[in-house]
């Protein structure tokens, strides 16, 4: 009986912790330039609307999205987005469709840079990794499923 109430108690605390956490996700003190709204968005579409002002991206084979088919450890998933075949790349965003907040990172390029990014991201479970490339004002997209055997978002 004692054990049961103990378990109940801990469950309740963890539930409140989740609630508090959700509140914390929108930090109160942020640098002006950091896009709080986009990074706090819970769906891929919302995040894209906040970053690019639109969520309708066309599939493009010119974007080379390199991601592992199976990631043994979701906490370290190497992702490479190569959009050097496209001219006028302005920015690249990488999203994990089923992460609590899908937008992982967003890169803006000055004329001195090529449309290429390679980095490592966390994936909580098996999901699609989405790369969005903005070139000449248009949104292009590439998607690939990554199977995750160990989640990387804690919990």
């Amino acid at each position, binding site marked *: 009986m004692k054990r049961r109430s103990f378990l109940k108690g*801990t469950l309740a*605390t*963890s539930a409140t*912790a989740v609630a*508090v*956490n959700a509140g*914390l*996700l929108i*930090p109160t003190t*942020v*640098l002006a*330039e*950091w*896009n709080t709204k986009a*990074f706090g968005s819970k769906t891929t579409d919302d995040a894209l609307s906040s970053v690019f002002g639109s969520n309708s991206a066309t599939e493009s084979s010119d974007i080379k999205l390199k991601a592992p088919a199976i990631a043994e450890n979701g*906490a*370290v*998933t190497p992702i490479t987005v190569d959009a*050097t075949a496209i001219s006028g790349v302005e920015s690249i965003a990488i999203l*994990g469709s089923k*992460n*609590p*907040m899908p*937008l*992982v*990172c*967003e*890169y*803006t*390029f*000055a004329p*001195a*840079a*090529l449309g*290429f*990014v*390679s*980095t*490592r*991201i*966390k994936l909580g479970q098996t999901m699609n990794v989405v790369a969005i490339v903005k070139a000449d004002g248009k949104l292009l997209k590439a998607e690939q499923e990554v199977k995750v055997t160990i989640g*990387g*978002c*804690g*919990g």
Partner: protein
Amino acid sequence: MSIKIRMRGKSKSGVAEVKALIKHPMESGHRMDKKTGKPHPAKFIETVEISVNGTKAVDAQWSGFVSANPYVSVKIKANSGDEVAISVVDNTGAKGSSTLKLK
């Protein structure tokens, strides 16, 4: 406390691939502390800026879902001898920067 960054880069026919390895926990604020049942407070790099000879080349914004000890690689138009600089700021205001002369 400054954030440590290691950088490598080599220019080949006008294009340099710059790689940076940043030492940072990248705590998303989602991971639970098993002992206390509370989440670990968020601590992650929010902005990354890479410049060549003082001109901004790449400007990035990150969330807490970039892996711990982040690795980032970009390609920029630069020749050997050019100076590449990277600077990062996290959500607690900690900063880090590093410069590199391209080979």
